[in-house]
């Protein structure tokens, strides 16, 4: 251990504190706001001293928004449930489709393979609004507007390219000899895929899955256009907080806290899968 001077250590701690405050301040502020009434939030000058209230959370969970203009029904919990359902299904589907596809793109060079892979990536370039008009027309014809299936399908535009390209890179990093060795040991191609390739690309699959879950969760426009109230996720549902009597900051804040929680929990859970270096030491050179 090097003996750094006290000044150095104090400075380092100070700097770290400043950085942490800088990044965490908005989140902490929202957390504080979620325990305040609208009046407390909007008073001038703002103050850190207040009597915490759970009214915001109560209103969200019971679904009755109390404003100065009267009571309003909102479906926040249903929106939250929709978000969980849509994002989870979309990511699971994208993983089922994307991981084998990523493996194919990583291991085999077939006709047009690069073009297909790039086309899939290009879905990420296109502004969603550009796609939405034709898409909503087609969806109307197909009867997919305002269905979970339709939304999950559209979410593949977000999740699939991400998973495909991240996981492909991880598959490419695995030495083919490791898979060859398993084949020669007498295992089938499919078994090799599940027992060797997938576990070794595990960190990549976890990272890609988590990232696409966050992107799906945060999506706004697709659900805004293609879903009605009872199928909408929280991002769209949050619009309900803009009421005739003003914006309900307290409820917005607690809604944010509630809607961040699932992603945060997932990220914390997935963290242990995100360990790198699993393949270190397997292959020489």
């Amino acid at each position, binding site marked *: 251990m090097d003996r750094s001077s006290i000044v150095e250590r104090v400075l380092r701690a100070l700097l770290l504190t400043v950085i942490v405050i800088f990044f965490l301040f908005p989140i902490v502020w929202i957390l504080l706001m979620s325990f305040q009434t609208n009046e407390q939030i909007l008073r001038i000058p703002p103050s850190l001293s207040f009597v915490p209230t759970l009214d915001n959370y109560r209103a969200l969970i019971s679904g009755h928004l109390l404003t100065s203009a009267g009571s309003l029904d909102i479906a926040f919990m249903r929106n939250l449930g929709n978000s969980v359902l849509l994002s989870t299904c979309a990511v699971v589907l994208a993983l089922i489709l994307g991981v084998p596809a990523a493996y194919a793109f990583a291991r085999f060079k077939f006709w047009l393979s690069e073009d297909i892979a790039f086309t899939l990536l290009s879905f990420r370039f296109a502004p969603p609004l550009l796609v939405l008009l034709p898409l909503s027309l087609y969806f109307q014809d197909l009867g997919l507007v305002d269905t979970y299936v339709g939304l999950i399908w559209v979410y593949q535009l977000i999740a699939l390219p991400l998973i495909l390209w991240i996981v492909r890179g991880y598959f490419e990093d695995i*030495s083919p*000899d*490791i898979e*060859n*060795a*398993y*084949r*020669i*040991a*007498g*295992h*089938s*191609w499919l*078994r090799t895929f599940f027992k*060797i390739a997938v*576990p*070794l690309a595990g960190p990549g699959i976890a990272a890609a899955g988590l990232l696409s879950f966050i992107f799906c969760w945060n999506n706004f426009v697709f659900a805004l256009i293609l879903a009605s109230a009872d199928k909408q996720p929280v991002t769209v549902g949050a619009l309900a907080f803009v009421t005739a009597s003003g914006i309900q900051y307290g409820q917005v804040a607690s809604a944010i806290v509630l809607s961040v929680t699932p992603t945060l929990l997932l990220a914390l859970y997935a963290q242990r899968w995100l360990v790198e270096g*699993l*393949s*270190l*030491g*397997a*292959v*020489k*050179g």
Partner: protein
Amino acid sequence: MAQIEIKDLHKSFKDDAVLKGLSLNIEKGEIVTLFGPSGTGKTVLLRLLAGIYAPDAGTIGLRGRDAAGSPPDKRGIGMAFQNFALFPHMTARDNIASALTARKTETGEIARKVEAVAQLLKISHVLEHSPRELSNGQKQRTALARALVADPDILLLDDPLRNVDAKLRYEMRLELPVLLKRARSTVLYVTQDFKEAMALGDRIAVLLDGEIAQCDTPERIYAEPVSIGVARLFGDPTLNLVEVEPRLVDGAPEILVGGATIRLPASYAAAAGGRYTLGLRPESLRLVDAPASGTIAVDLVAVTPLNEKSVLLCTMDGGDELLASEAGDRDVPRRTGPGRVALDLDAVLLFDRASGRRFAPADNNGVGL
């Protein structure tokens, strides 16, 4: 019927033709070392045999049956990779056992066999470690154990000693022949080290320019290489090459080396009048004191003692260099300066300068090591 029968095998990658009509037969229970400089396609050949690559043309017969279209998992081959290719997410035990789990072996039987092979290779104490925690030597033994554990009748070893340190390599070079003989498999062993090739192989297959240049016992490859290319791959230091033009004097073939006239055995008479390259193994050259006829006057420039032998660098008249080596137990002069070198006429190699092929003396009986 040969256990491994390779006929006219072709394989190229893009425009790079690696194997150009390679043929090789390996009998059951035989250990053949596949030897050649790097980049000649030794590993490619092994992969073709294992079914990882498919040949462009030609056939591979395994146990008398055409292996075309048979996937790697159906060939019943054991293989050790040069880079070990251990499964990083499994313990050494599971790595070794992977060759048995596919064959629907009983759990108890698997454990017993893994223990047995681990004991043989002295890795019993690290079976619960993951590959990351193993030293290179242990990794190499684990990879070898994985190839051996299922008692495959065909074993492909891709330069398994390449990535281990010198001490372990020396140890393994002594242990491996015993191990391989015990396994009673047909073995194709790839190496870039001619000593390893000679120590391990019943026969050596020399791979040059996409073909097997020569496949023979180590002794014959050393004493009777088919071409100058093969001859140069064996020996440390490598053989000396001197351009000569044999001519007949009084019915006996003679050559001029470094100003000295040397009378070749009569069996070389047919070489008279041609243009040849003389190949002299360093150990076939001896420093002599008396200026007898048939000895070459040299200037001894440097003496490098290497324990078991000494390497002598000499220059002949005209500046051509000669490397000679003398066994270490002999009294090798440490002094440099003028001297004379005699050559062992039995070990002389004569190569056609145009084709590089060895001139076969009329009577071949006298040639030995």
